[in-house]
Every structure is written in structure tokens, then in C-alpha cells.
């Protein structure tokens, strides 16, 4: 069947900002799909609100709209563009839900827009629990006993009938938001309430828990001719009970016999046919470990996180093929892009195993509940490829960047046996390590299996690792080459071998060099070498033959940024991809090393060669040894890559771009202070203290408030702003252990407007594409603040000062490439807060608004093409007429017990961009796109700290003019009443039945404004309120600057409401 010729113009919806449950994988699949559609001659219109994506680059689609992903904006775009088709299956749940709304509103039919990839009926059948269950029963596929409920009472009734444990799954939510397992009636009440609230249709599925069953996933593709294939199946290390996004996963399945494999395969094909899906689909199964009994858990009628993983695991580009199928092409007509000789209609054969481990944000959110269940909590993931389970597992452990290179956490060492056994029973992010420690302590596998239900095969795999550890310990200094090689084949890092044998890492390295022990690189080719292919996609292993094709061209290695985590997100992958593109455009070969299966940079079509490897010095040096590049670029892969500069430099590898010395001068506190002093640039005064007494003494001289943080971050203990000596004392007793080895840094907290500059320097010329102004005052982490380009409240003189300071710092550091500087303007004076000698989070945003592909310009500069030669200028680029606002996006709803108040520690997971010709409209778009539900009218709940009263009241007056009502507790209410503004007084938490918490929980307010004040009780009351608002889906703002911005957007669009 040739492609459907009437589809000349297709609109693709992206997935919006990165949130837990919907991350970079949709940039990967979306970008691939858009390329795939354009290959077929289709004009592609793309809509996405996330600027930090490759898919929103102008070059990706024919037209790109960076606009909020809601019905209003899509409607206008559809009218304006009048596409022939709408493809919503590549933009995650966001795009799918939006498509359903557009279809059901009748708009698509009215405009004659065909919904591609799947039908609304299919989406509803797969997503609506009741319809799904009915369909499964109709086609004879088993589903667990379940009931659809809309109230807690219905849930209780079902529990009385079936018993416990039960699983609550809310309908139409991301990553299972609001769901969970209930073992008793109290837990059920809690989970059912949150689940019903979380579901946009207030509907939950309650089902018999099959926790402990094996969990498997099948990635299926079907075309319009009913040809169906399985791209990959995957088996979870964690049995049913942990969300698949939070599970450690192996592919292909490891413990299924062919009978079981085919049983589920046949079922998956039956399901995709019954749903009439044309494209990709994911089916999740629970399989009884003791029989052939299985249950269908869930179906995603679209490209998903798992399909991105399956694509990277097999080399089979699911999104690309799904897009072609949407145009009517058959699997048997599409050439397999990997072999280029065979067709896409086949099932990949792997000759390696992959292991995926999620990356959780608990290093940032110390207080969060780290237990894992049906609600996904991971922000990212890593993948390791190996020829054995052990190798794949250890490679992915090394890729996690959690401070260990082996499946061993120092904090678990010598923990009591009972503690380990108890902890492993309730899965949390450390379970893999707990199990390994238990095996290390000699706890029988039987017992571990009984507590965890983790399959014996996986436990045996860990035991084989532990056995090598003890062999290494026994060998000590007498380590034999044979054992060394065996340890390497098992996937051990040199550092791990050093740790267990007691030798130094250098000794191990030298011993390997002497014996010629180096890894080889094998190709990922979809077909287990049956057909010739030339995929430039490699992984290291310890075998005989190396398959990397020799090349005489000059090569540049680019280091990626590893797993997505808070503070290091998709922005760094964006810059990495641009760097790769620029390297190739300049005639070099670009070689990328990365381990994140979700990203565009690990699409093997992007670079000349992709090495899917951990980003540790050893793993990176092995690749460099094989490639012999002219040098390595470390400035685009975030802190991950920057941290590798020193070991690589020490190993004699050339760092391209800013030198190690330049990096060090910016990052080493002492050297940085000296530099600023030398340049006569002000920075907030600060001290390094080693005791609480010293802290109090020094701070008295500095003056409050101050920013305090440990110099040596252990487990991400927080940075805080303290306002007086009591708070400082509290911080020292509660948050840190200060010792001479672990000093604490104290800096004056300069209240003022924060500014951020990203610049490119070639050593001589400093080019500044743009300056951004933060909407929140310094003190809110730059990643969590709204920011606007160009600055709205800063005069030309100050801007010139920023340009001048940026220029002198960049030149002094001899920056070659990118530099990011954060400033604060305090009482008219400019202070430098931070200098990052690398690509920053704001590079994609600024690249989009200024139309300067900053990472590309920087890469060219690094490779010797000066900024002037590239046609750019010394100094700042002329500002555009367009105003763009960056809005942060949080995933608080997914993370129970996480503080939502903004502070100096970053908490957001993603970002959006609002652009317009008028500032307030750009702001409004940013609010809408970030998912903030802007109330046009209604009730504002206000509780502000004493220090914020004055500013708070000014905002209350403006809300009053707009016609809003107010609710407040006594203190704040008095102030409001004093303004002659009506206010309803409510009780503090616990002081009456209908207290302030009850008001929020009942949804009796539309906006919560709460600024943080110290003192234990107040703090925890505030915390409860903020959490209640997040869980009820009520916008809660904790910075008055954000509130000011919000009111501005309302004032701008509000009609006057005065009586005659």
C-alpha cells in the first residue's frame, strides 16, 4: 500500500515540559517521527511548549509553534494551518489527551482533519479502565478482578468483596499519579481519595493486587494491513508492585521459556488487533511465577517511555516506523533503516542484554518518601549494554552517577541483617544495593527471594558479582591476570577491582595495559549479526573481535550528560546534539558517549558513532583509546562531562574548548574569589566556617540574611537562606554536620533582581546573544524561576555593566566555548553570584528566542572558527522585538512529602516558553504552558510571613481590584481587613474542624499564596497547606514575585469591573 497521498500536511503534537513520567523520550520519538514524515514529502507543523527540545528547532519541522499545549491554542493553530492530519501518538499522554478533546469537541471533523495513528475509540478503550476491561473480557484476555469506582465508598465496597491487598489506578493520569497499593482499609481510604482526585474524570480502577508476579512488557507495532511485530520484550527485575518506570528492567526477557514468551507475544498481537492500533503500542503483563497464568495490566496505545527504551535496546526506530505507518505505509514496504537491506517487518534479534536502571531525585529531595509503588518517581534512567547480565547491570550502575562505580553503597555496609531484610521487603530506590549487601553478608538467596519475590536468576547474577568480589579480596596484592580478566568480563570497573583487592586503580590499570586487557566494541544491529549492517552504534564488552570500522577522518569526542535528574535535564542533551551537528558540519567526525536511552543524542543517526557507555573516566578513556580523536569536548554535557575534564586531562587527553585551568578557576571557590578580586568585580561577601560558633561570629559581621550550604555536598543536603541567629543555629543543628573536614559556606544573601547571561567566547571575542532577567528575586534557584528575555526592568547602564563584566570574566578565564554567569543587582550595584564555564540550562531557551544556535556557534569557535568569522559580533546581539518568558515546571504531584516552597535548591523538572510581542501575554502563555491554572476570578487564600506583609498587602489590593475574594488566618486577615477589604477568617491547622487545610482540601479556594516563615510549627503548617494545594491541583505560589507576574497577566486581560 503506497502512502496515503491526501496527507500533504500533518500536525504533530509534542509532549510539553519534562515532568516525572514524561521526559526526554518524547523529544527523541517526536524528532524521529517528524524526520520520518518529512522523508515522505509531508509538510510537518509541530506544536510543543518545551523549548529545550530538538523537535522545536526550526530545522526539524516545516513550521514550529512553541505554544501552550491546550485546546484553545491548538484550535487556533488548526484553523490557521488547516492540516490534513493530526498525529498525536508521539507526544505522550499529553498529546493523546489533547487529541481526544479536539476530536470530541467536533473540531477535527469540522476542519476535515484526520486523526492519525489511532482512533479516539482506541484511546478511550485503552485508557478508560472500564472500557478496557470489557474489551479484554470480550477477546478472552485475562485481567485481574477489578471494579471501577468514582467514590471512596465504592472502593470500600469492593474491598469487602475481594479483600486486600488492592491496587488503585486512576484513569488518564501521567505515571500513575495518585495511585497506590492499599493493604488495609485506612490505606485504601487515603489512596482512593488521592486517586479519584488525580483523575481528570474522577475515576479509578481498583483491582486485586498481583504484587509479586513477574512483570513483563511487549512493544508491538501494527500497520494498516494488520501486519504485527514485537520489537522487544522486557522483564522487570522488580516484580509487579513497582511502577515500570521505577523498575530495573532487562531486555530481552530472561526467565521466560519459549512457551511463555510466545504465550504473551500472541496475547499482545491479539490486543493490538482488537484495539485496531496503527503504529506503536505497549502491553504490560503480570505472569504468575508458578504457572502459565497471566494478566494484562495495561496498554499504552502510543509510543511510550518503554518504546524509547526498546528502540535503544534493539536499534529498531519505533517512532520513525510508527510515523510512516500513520501515513499508510506497510511494515513490509518500509526498509529497515539499520540493515538498509531488509524490511521493517521483522522482529529484532539481540545478541547482548540490556539493563535499565531508573534515576530517582531523592538525592535532591531528602525528605521525600523514597518508597516505590504504583506512582512513578524517577526523573530519568540509564541503560547498560553487555554480553552478560552482570556486565549490563554493572555498567548501568556506573552510569547512574550516584557516587559509586559498583553495586555497593557505603552507607549500607555492615548494616544489621534484619534491617536489610526489612528494607528490601518494601521496595525503595536502594533495593538493588540492599539485596547486593544482603548477598554479600551471606543471607541465603531463598530468604531474599521470599522477602522480595525478585527472581532467582537475578539474585544469582548478583551473587556471581559478589563471588568475584570475595575472590578479589582473597587475592589482594596477588591478583592474577586471569582473575583480573574474569572480573573485567563480569563488568567490574578498575576502581571496583581496586577497592576489593586493596590495590590502587593505577596498579590495576597498569596490569591491564601490561597484559593487553582492553574492551572491544560490538555493534547494535537489530539482527544478531545475521545480516550485514553499518549502524554506528556500539557498546563495549570483553570479547575477541572489535567491530568499529576504521576511519581516517579527524574525530571529536563529545561527552553527553547521562541520566536526566533535577538540575541536569534535557537542556544539556539539546546542547550536546547541537555540538554534534556543528562538528559534522565542520567536516570532522562526531563521536558521542552517553548512557541515557531517552535522548536524541543517543539516536545513532545523530552522530558518526555512538558509544553507549557509562560516563566514568575509565569507560570514556577506553573509547578515546579506540577512536584516537583530536580531543574531547566536555562543556555541553553538564556537570557530568565537566567533572571528567580533570581525569581526561591528566590522562593526556586534549580538552577542546576552555582549558582545565579555566574550568578550575571558575569552579574552585578560592581561585574564583581571587579572580574576581583581580578583575575588581564584586561578589557577595562570604566565609568558610568549620564550627557553629565561628558561623555565628562571622555572620554577625556579614549581616543577615545569609545563604548557607555545606561545601561538601553529602547526599544533597540543602542550601538555605537564614534570616537571624536562631535560624542559623537551627540550620547547624538540623541540616549539617560541620567539621574542619566538612566546612560550611556562608554568603551574604543579596536581595535583588537576578540576571543571567550566556555568552560565547573564542578567546578573543565575547559574543552575548542575550540577557535574561529573573522574575523571582535572588534566593529562588535560577532553574526554578520564571525568566524573561529581554530584560524588562533593567536600564541600559546596568545592562552594559553586565555585558562588560561578562566580557572581562570570559576573557580572563580564556573561555573557548560557552559561559554562563548569574548576577544579582543589589541596591543598584551588580554582584556576581556564579560562573559556569560550560553550556547552561538556559542555552536552548536563549537559542530559540535569539535565533542563535549557541551550542553550534560555541562548537565552531572551539574548533577554530572565530566568532567574527562566523558573522557574529563582540558584545551583545541586538534585542529582538519578541518577548519570551521561561516558566519552570514541577512534578510535586508525583512526589509525596516534598516541600513545594521555592528556595535556593532546584526543584523543577522541566520548563516551558511563552512568547509574544507583549510582556504580559508572554507571561500568560508561560503560566498556561507550565500547567498553572490561572483563575480569572474566585478566592485567594493568603498567608504570608511577617517579612512579606507589606509586599503581600500590595498584591492583595490588586487582586481586590480584579474582584477576587480572600480567605486568611487571623494574622494576615487582620491586615487585609485593615485595608477595608472583605476577608473570611479561617482557623489555623488543627484549631477547628473547618481549618485552613480543610478549605484547601475541599477546593474552596482557587489560588494559594503562601510565603515561607521559619519556626518549627509554622513551617510544618505551611508545608501541609502547600502539599494539600498541590494534591488538590490548586495553584500554590510561594514567591510574591511570581504572584506579581500572575496579577500582571490578569490585569492586562481583565475588563474593568466598576459599578456605575
Amino acid at each position: 500500500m503506497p502512502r496515503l497521498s491526501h496527507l500533504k500536511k500533518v500536525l504533530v503534537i509534542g509532549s510539553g515540559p519534562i515532568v516525572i513520567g514524561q521526559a526526554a523520550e518524547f523529544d527523541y520519538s517526536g524528532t524521529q517521527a517528524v524526520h520520518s514524515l518529512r522523508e515522505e514529502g509531508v509538510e510537518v507543523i509541530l506544536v510543543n511548549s518545551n523549548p529545550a527540545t530538538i523537535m522545536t528547532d526550526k530545522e526539524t519541522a516545516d513550521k514550529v509553534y512553541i505554544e501552550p499545549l491546550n485546546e484553545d491554542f491548538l484550535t487556533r493553530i488548526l484553523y490557521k494551518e488547516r492540516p490534513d492530519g493530526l498525529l498525536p501518538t508521539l507526544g505522550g499522554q499529553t498529546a493523546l489527551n489533547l487529541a481526544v478533546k479536539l476530536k470530541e469537541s467536533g473540531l477535527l471533523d469540522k476542519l476535515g482533519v484526520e486523526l492519525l495513528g489511532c482512533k479516539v475509540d482506541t484511546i478511550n478503550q485503552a485508557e478508560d479502565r472500564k472500557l478496557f476491561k470489557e474489551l479484554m473480557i470480550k477477546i478472552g484476555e485475562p485481567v485481574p478482578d477489578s471494579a471501577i469506582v468514582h467514590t471512596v465508598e465504592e472502593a470500600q465496597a469492593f474491598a469487602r468483596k475481594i479483600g486486600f491487598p488492592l491496587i488503585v489506578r486512576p484513569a488518564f493520569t501521567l505515571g500513575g499519579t495518585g495511585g497506590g497499593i492499599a493493604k488495609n482499609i485506612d490505606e485504601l481510604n487515603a489512596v482512593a481519595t488521592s486517586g479519584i482526585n488525580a483523575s481528570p474524570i474522577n475515576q479509578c480502577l481498583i483491582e486485586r493486587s498481583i504484587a509479586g508476579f513477574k512483570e513483563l512488557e511487549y512493544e508491538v507495532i501494527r500497520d494498516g494491513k494488520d501486519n504485527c511485530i514485537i520489537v522487544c520484550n522486557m522483564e522487570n527485575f522488580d516484580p509487579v508492585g513497582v511502577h515500570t518506570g521505577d523498575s530495573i528492567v532487562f531486555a530481552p526477557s530472561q526467565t521466560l521459556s519459549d512457551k511463555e514468551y510466545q504465550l504473551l507475544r500472541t496475547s499482545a498481537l491479539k490486543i493490538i488487533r482488537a484495539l485496531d492500533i496503527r503504529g506503536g503500542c505497549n502491553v504490560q503483563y503480570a505472569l504468575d511465577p508458578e504457572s502459565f497464568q497471566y494478566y494484562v495490566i495495561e496498554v499504552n496505545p502510543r509510543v511510550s517511555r518503554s518504546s524509547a527504551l526498546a528502540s535503544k535496546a534493539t536499534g529498531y526506530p519505533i517512532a520513525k516506523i510508527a510515523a510512516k505507518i500513520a501515513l499508510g505505509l506497510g511494515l513490509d514496504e518500509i526498509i529497515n533503516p539499520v540493515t538498509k537491506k531488509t524490511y521493517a517487518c521483522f522482529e529484532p534479534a539481540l545478541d547482548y542484554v540490556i539493563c535499565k536502571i531508573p534515576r530517582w531525585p531523592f538525592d535532591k529531595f531528602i525528605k521525600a518518601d523514597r518508597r516505590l509503588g504504583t506512582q512513578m518517581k524517577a526523573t530519568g534512567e540509564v541503560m547498560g549494554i553487555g554480553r552478560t547480565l552482570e556486565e549490563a547491570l554493572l555498567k548501568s550502575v556506573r552510569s547512574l552517577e550516584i557516587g559509586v562505580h559498583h553495586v555497593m553503597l557505603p552507607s549500607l555496609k555492615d548494616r544489621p541483617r534484619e534491617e536489610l531484610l526489612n528494607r528490601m521487603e518494601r521496595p525503595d530506590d536502594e533495593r538493588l544495593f540492599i539485596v547486593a549487601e544482603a548477598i554479600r553478608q551471606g543471607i541465603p538467596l531463598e530468604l531474599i527471594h521470599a522477602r522480595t519475590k525478585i527472581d532467582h536468576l537475578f539474585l544469582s547474577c548478583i551473587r556471581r558479582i559478589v563471588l568475584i568480589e570475595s575472590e578479589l579480596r582473597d587475592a589482594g596484592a596477588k591478583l592474577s591476570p586471569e582473575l583480573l580478566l574474569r572480573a573485567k568480563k563480569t563488568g567490574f570497573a578498575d576502581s571496583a577491582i581496586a577497592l576489593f583487592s586493596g590495590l590502587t586503580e593505577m596498579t590495576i590499570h597498569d596490569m591491564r595495559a601490561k597484559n593487553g586487557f582492553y574492551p572491544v566494541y560490538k555493534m547494535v544491529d537489530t539482527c544478531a549479526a545475521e545480516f550485514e549492517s553499518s549502524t554506528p552504534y556500539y557498546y563495549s564488552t570483553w570479547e575477541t573481535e572489535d567491530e568499529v570500522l576504521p576511519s581516517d577522518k579527524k574525530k571529536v569526542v563529545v561527552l553527553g550528560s547521562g541520566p536526566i535528574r533535577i538540575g541536569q535535564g534535557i537542556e544539556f542533551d539539546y546542547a550536546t546534539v547541537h555540538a554534534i551537528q556543528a562538528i559534522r558540519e565542520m567536516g570532522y567526525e562526531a563521536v558521542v558517549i552517553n548512557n541515557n536511552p531517552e535522548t536524541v543524542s543517543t539516536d545513532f543517526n545523530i552522530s558518526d558513532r555512538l558509544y553507549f557507555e557509562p560516563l566514568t573516566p575509565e569507560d570514556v578513556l577506553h573509547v578515546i583509546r579506540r577512536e584516537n580523536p583530536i580531543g574531547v569536548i566536555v562543556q555541553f554535557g553538564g556537570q557530568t562531562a565537566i567533572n571528567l575534564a580533570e581525569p581526561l586531562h591528566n590522562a593526556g587527553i586534549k580538552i577542546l574548548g576552555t582549558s582545565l585551568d579555566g574550568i578550575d578557576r571558575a569552579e574552585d571557590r578560592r581561585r574564583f574569589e581571587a579572580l574576581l578580586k583581580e578583575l575588581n568585580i564584586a561578589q557577595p561577601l562570604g566565609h568558610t566556617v568549620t564550627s557553629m560558633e565561628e558561623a555565628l561570629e562571622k555572620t554577625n559581621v556579614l549581616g543577615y540574611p545569609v545563604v548557607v550550604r555545606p561545601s561538601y555536598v553529602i547526599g544533597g543536603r540543602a542550601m538555605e537562606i537564614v534570616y537571624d541567629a536562631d535560624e542559623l543555629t537551627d540550620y547547624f543543628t538540623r541540616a549539617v554536620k560541620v567539621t574542619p573536614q566538612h566546612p560550611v559556606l556562608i554568603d551574604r544573601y543579596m536581595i535583588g533582581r537576578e540576571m543571567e547571561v550566556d555568552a560565547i567566547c573564542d578567546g578573543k571575542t565575547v559574543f552575548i546573544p542575550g540577557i535574561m532577567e529573573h522574575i523571582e528575586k535572588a534566593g529562588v534557584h535560577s532553574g526554578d524561576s520564571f525568566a524573561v528575555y529581554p530584560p524588562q526592568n533593567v536600564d541600559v547602564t546596568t545592562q552594559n555593566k553586565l555585558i562588560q563584566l561578562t566580557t572581562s570574566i570570559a576573557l580572563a578565564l580564556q573561555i573557548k566555548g560557552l559561559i554562563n554567569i548569574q548576577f544579582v543587582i543589589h541596591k543598584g550595584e551588580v554582584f556576581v553570584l556564579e560562573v559556569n564555564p560550560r553550556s547552561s540550562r538556559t542555552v536552548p531557551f536563549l537559542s530559540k528566542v535569539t535565533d542563535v544556535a549557541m551550542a553550534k556557534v560555541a562548537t565552531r569557535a572551539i574548533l577554530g572558527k572565530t566568532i567574527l568569522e562566523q558573522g557574529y559580533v563582540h558584545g551583545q546581539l541586538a534585542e529582538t522585538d519578541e518577548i519570551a518568558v521561561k516558566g519552570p515546571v514541577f512534578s510535586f504531584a508525583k512526589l509525596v512529602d516534598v516541600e513545594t516552597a521555592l528556595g535556593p535548591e532546584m526543584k523543577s523538572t522541566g520548563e516551558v516558553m511563552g512568547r509574544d510581542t507583549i510582556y504580559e501575554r508572554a507571561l500568560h502563555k508561560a503560566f498556561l504552558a507550565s500547567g498553572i491554572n490561572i483563575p480569572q476570578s474566585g478566592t485567594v487564600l493568603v498567608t504570608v510571613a511577617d517579612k512579606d506583609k507589606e509586599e503581600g498587602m500590595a498584591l492583595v489590593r490588586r487582586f481586590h481590584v480584579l474582584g477576587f475574594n480572600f480567605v486568611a488566618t487571623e494574622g494576615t486577615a487582620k491586615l487585609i481587613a485593615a485595608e477595608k477589604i472583605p476577608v473570611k477568617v479561617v482557623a489555623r491547622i488543627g484549631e477547628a474542624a473547618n481549618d485552613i487545610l480543610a478549605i484547601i482540601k475541599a477546593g474552596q479556594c482557587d489560588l494559594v499564596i503562601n510565603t515561607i516563615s521559619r519556626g518549627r510549627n509554622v513551617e510544618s503548617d505551611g508545608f501541609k497547606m502547600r502539599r494539600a494545594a498541590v494534591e488538590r491541583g490548586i495553584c500554590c505560589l510561594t514567591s510574591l514575585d511570581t504572584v506579581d507576574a500572575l496579577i500582571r497577566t490578569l490585569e492586562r486581560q481583565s475588563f474593568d469591573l466598576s459599578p456605575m
Partner: protein
Amino acid sequence: MNLKLWLETGESFEGASFGAEVKTTSMLGELVFNTGMTGYQEILSDPSYCDQIVMMTFPLIGQYGVNKDDFESMVPALKGFVVREACETPSNWRSEYTLPQLLKEFGVPGIQGLDTRLLTKKIRSSGSMRALFANPAVSKEEVMEQLKQPLPKDQISRVSTRHSIHFPGEGKRVVLMDFGYKKNILRSLLRRGCDVVVVPWDSSAASIMKFKPDGVMLSNGPGDPKDALHTLPVIRALQEALPVMAICMGHQLFALANGADTAKMKFGHRGSNPPVKDLKNGRTYMTSQNHGYAVTLESIGASPLELTQVNLNDGTCEGLAHKSLPAFSVQYHPEAYPGPEDTQWLFDAFIQSMK
């Protein structure tokens, strides 16, 4: 214990021995690879692998152990097994023993720890080749002498049943000509209610007709179809009288019996993922395959057969049907196990043809 895998090219690869012990040298076999990621138990017991040394491209083999249900025959026919890693600690509810234990019991030697991907690429470029295992102490000269020997040509007679066996059923009676049948062909017929008589491969048409069958199934089997030419008149006689379905070796013999030709392939098709396109309905199916010979496309035109199915990747013949008789054949294994169940409907079609 160390063991070497020797190829007819004179190259050798050292690994570790598992399964049956090799004191000096193992028996000669043809080294082939299978890309299936599951199904090693079925593969090990598939008679079609007679006189072959099978290498699995998936590196971890034996993960789910060995159970009593998934054998495709009771007597292993292969000469050796090559894997990257043989699992000693399997895990599956049906597992009764480990892969190394099974091989030991079968008397089949295995080798592990080799770079199987390298070997796969070698076969891909040079074709299937003769190989054997040898104790590292055995000299190259001695090994090469053995590697020069031709492979035997009597595989079918060694794996076929000697006597007819009756598996009662309520439905149509099918005679299954055993060239080395996989049990799942029998199971696929029995599951559909057939009454099945398995007969030796060299049975005469008259002796088969004595069973008063409603149809004939020609089974899979090992080796070169041209080593079984004397079955061709029998097949010709049967197809005139009865509906015929033929699988793999049966398909090749059916083609030869009708005047088409077969030829050895470079390295054949062995795995659970080859796509086969049905030229009649336009659909493509995932199939289970294991063959080193194929019916040549150019020989079909002059025969009374029509090409019904082709391999989507290399265009080779995957299915034939007689233009005027109710007889059809497929090169792959619709009975599955190992491999996908996509084409089980062919058995239904066969049963339909007997009505």
C-alpha cells in the same frame, strides 16, 4: 576444562567445555547459527539439526533451564552446541535441570566462552562450514584430517521412526511422514482432533494408503532433500490421491517431486524472526525457521506449482501450492516452538482441505 572449536578453514577458538565430555575430538558437524532468543530446548531436540553443531547468537543460554514438556523429540540429533554463556543457575517454575546437565544426559558436547558474534559473522560471510570440538592437546594436523571428511548423507534414516505409530483422535486421519518430525507438528494436528499415524520416511504409497488416511503431512527433517530422492514417486502418488501439507524438508521434497529444484543456501535461515509474505493475502508473518536448503525460484515456473509465499528479506521461496491438486507446502515451521504462532492457521487450512 578447556575445549577448542575447529573450523574447516583451519581456524580454532578456545572456550570452556560443558555438557558431554570431549576426550579427544567430537564428531564432525556443520556449524550453523540460530538467532532465536528463546527456545534452546526445542532447538536441541529438533531432529532437523542432525549432524549440525548449533551456535546460539543470543549470549545467555539456559536461563530458564530444561523442563519435561518442551522437547521436540526424545533423541537429540545435533553434534554440538556453542554458546557465549551456559547458565548453571536457571530459574523457571517448570525447570527440572540445567542446560549443561541436559547436554550431558544427551551425550552432546558443548562449548562456552567464545565470541559467538565473531563466529556468526564468519558464517555469514563464508557460509555454514564443517567444524568439530577437540581437546586442546589434539594436534592441528589430526583435527584437520578429520575436518576433511565429508558429512554423512543418511541423516533422515537415522532420525525417522522405524515403525508406524498411531495417535488416536476423533477427527480426520492424517498420515505424518516422518523425515525427522518435530513433536509440535503432531501436537498441532492432535489439538485439532486429528487421528494421526506417524510412518517411517521410506514407507511406500501403498503401505500409507492402507491406513485409509484423509490427508498426508510431510514433516521437517535434516540434511539435503536430494539424499531422499526415492521418496519422490511416493509423494507424487500420494498427492494424486489425498490432500497434502508439507513442512520444511517435506516442502523441499514436495517441490522436487513436482519437478522444481532445490539448492544449498549460504548459511540458511535459523531463528524465530524471519518475515514471510503471503502473496495471496498480502500479509507478512513472523515465522520459525530452520533450513539450509531452499527451493530455487527459477525452477518453479516450469512445474505445476505456484509460489505462494516468499521471504520478505531475501525473496527466497517460503511456500508453494499445487495448481490443480489440494497440496501445499511451507519452508518454515507453522507449528512454532520455538518461535511465533502466527501461521498456525495453515493447519486449519489443511484440515479444511480434507473435508
